[in-house]
């Protein structure tokens, strides 16, 4: 029990805090000393999914313009999770071709470790948005803005470290990743529309048969 608790403390508090303070060495340790915790990463992913729903519903009334009569929890969660996997897949497919040293699960973990400070700031902003006045909402926006900046920074540092890239290579990788994401989205759309066409065709055939018989 005691061992589990100390393990838990290390995975959920000590190591994430260490990455926050010393990102380069932290991500390096994650890769080479296997210090990262997959459980923590999945927790962050779930947390941000749930946060997206919470923000939609419980964001302070003063800045919440959502139609609360139309909320789809599943949709809101997928909207968070899907881009993560899109990005990870895009980045993995690019870096595999370009001598990147990072593995798929490492890219995912880096993304999650980069995401968790943003998650914490989102919780803070969510609570603040309910007690602040209209004029003070700039604080909430600033907190969210800082969170996004942090996310981008840690993500970039983490990716550069696990792929063992330089700064210039890193920038190139990000641009290529964006391009890869576009390609993936295009292929997905193509696939979906083709599948839909096939189903449509089958349905038409079935209807014709039913009318004939």
């Amino acid at each position, binding site marked *: 029990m005691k061992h589990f608790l100390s393990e838990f403390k290390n995975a959920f508090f000590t190591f994430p805090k260490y990455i926050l303070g010393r990102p380069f060495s932290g991500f390096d340790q994650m890769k080479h000393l296997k210090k990262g915790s997959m459980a923590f990463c999945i927790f962050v992913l779930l947390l941000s999914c749930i946060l997206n729903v919470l923000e939609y519903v419980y964001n302070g*009334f*003063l800045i919440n*313009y959502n139609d609360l009569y139309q909320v789809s929890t599943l949709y809101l969660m997928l909207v968070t999770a899907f881009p993560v996997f899109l990005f990870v897949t895009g980045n993995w497919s690019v870096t595999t071709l370009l001598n990147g040293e990072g593995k798929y699960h490492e890219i995912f973990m880096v993304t999650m470790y980069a995401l968790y400070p943003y998650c914490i700031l989102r919780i803070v902003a969510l609570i603040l948005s309910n007690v602040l*006045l209209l*004029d003070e909402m700039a604080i909430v926006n600033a907190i969210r803005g800082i969170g996004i900046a942090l996310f981008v920074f840690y993500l970039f540092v983490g990716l550069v470290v696990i792929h063992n890239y330089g700064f210039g290579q890193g920038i190139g990788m990000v641009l290529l990743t964006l391009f890869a994401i576009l390609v993936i989205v295009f292929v997905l759309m193509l696939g979906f529309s083709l599948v839909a066409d096939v189903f449509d065709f089958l349905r038409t055939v079935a209807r014709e048969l039913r009318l004939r018989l």
Partner: protein
Amino acid sequence: MKKIVAYTLLITMLVPFMLSCFAEGSSNYLYDSNQKQVPAPPAYLHERTYMVSDFAGQTGQSGTALKDLKSMQSACYKNGKIYITCTNKLVILSEDFELIDVIESYIDLGGHKASFDSNVGTFVTDSGEYYICEPNRSRILHFAADGTLLRALDNPGITGVDAGVKYRPTQLAVDEAGRMFVVAKGMYEGIVELDTDGKFVGFYGVNEVKFNVLDLLWRKIATSSQRSKQSLWLPTDFTNICIDSDGFKFATVQSASAAESVMRLNAKGQNILRVDEDDPYPSGDLWMNQVTSTGAPVGASEFIAVDTNDFGVYMCLDATRNRVFAYNEDGKLLFIFGGKGNRKGYFRGPVDVDFVGDSIMVLDSTAETIELFSQTDYGIALMRAVEAQYGYDYLTAEQYWREALKYNHNLFLAYSGIGRALLRRGENKEALKYLKLGDDRKYYSKALEKVRNETLKQYLIPCVLGLIGLVVVKKTVKHVIKRKKEGRRTA
């Protein structure tokens, strides 16, 4: 068994009546804060249709009877009289729609008898003098209250316009000082402002041409022959004008692309119409068909007439769907009625809309009728609440808002009105609830500030004291433990 049959029959007979209380009225909806249509009870119901036959047997002061109501153009209600211009005559009715006079001819300045030619707009001053626009003769006629012609204002010498453009005044408004604001057909520069003598002062409330980057890019790419075939970029035409009780001019613009289709213009000609940051600009229908296969009207509302009342309510007549949209001084939608059709409460070709006391009058030029709408109980509560709120009488307003809420649970304005009244009374927590329901973020913020301060006052001092206490206790405990350890060591 017989009883059951009887009851079933009774209920089935009652169903049409039950349905009819929903079907009564026309265009029974409002828009909620998410710009979605929500059902609303009618605020105004069709009361009566006046046709020529309703005035049969009545003769005016000058002895002429009303022969027809063909090609009505516009109406003006002042001092308990209704002035309606038809192309070739002026009809004056009393508030109760009794014929007062029909003027078909007048004595012109040369002393000859003359008849009207192409009347469009009319304006009646507080003293009963009236102005009539005659676009085909490029002039405005100014009559005294007794019907003698005082002035015929010809082309005022407009400068800065193509010489080929004919001056065709169609609508006008006259302010307290006697300055005239004339809407002229094809005058894209703006509203023509004339001084008390009828001299040209300048253009007023100029519409700016707006175009986006893409349009500009296409224009750059297009060859000159292509460009010549494209439509010209012209500012939109004003369609109607009226003066509100504060002396500001309300003007409408008929254009599907105009962002601001109704404006409230100050003395400088700037649009000062009040619209909340979160609200869409008052532009009639927010949800509309863009394409149709059934012949239903498509596209945005196009306003052709506007009228205001004493407490800041203005209503606009939409020529696309023949509906009337009324807003309060803050640009919040109050009610909608009308629509295209032949049925009671619908219009075929409306040209003007006016408040007649508490009622509303719509001129239907195609049907040659005057349609009168009167307030329902809901409408009375709604308008009284708006009136009280206009006069900053929040407590009276609250009472009427609560009454209006009984009829319409979708009335956001009522919730926010009650919330504001509660806030004024100091019931801040209750106010928060209502302001949230009313989607009134500005006042919600004010209420939240008060609630927050109350809560802080209540809990801040105990919290701080508790915290200090906690720290003190912690320090002492630490100190005591340290002492004990030292004690052990020394022992």
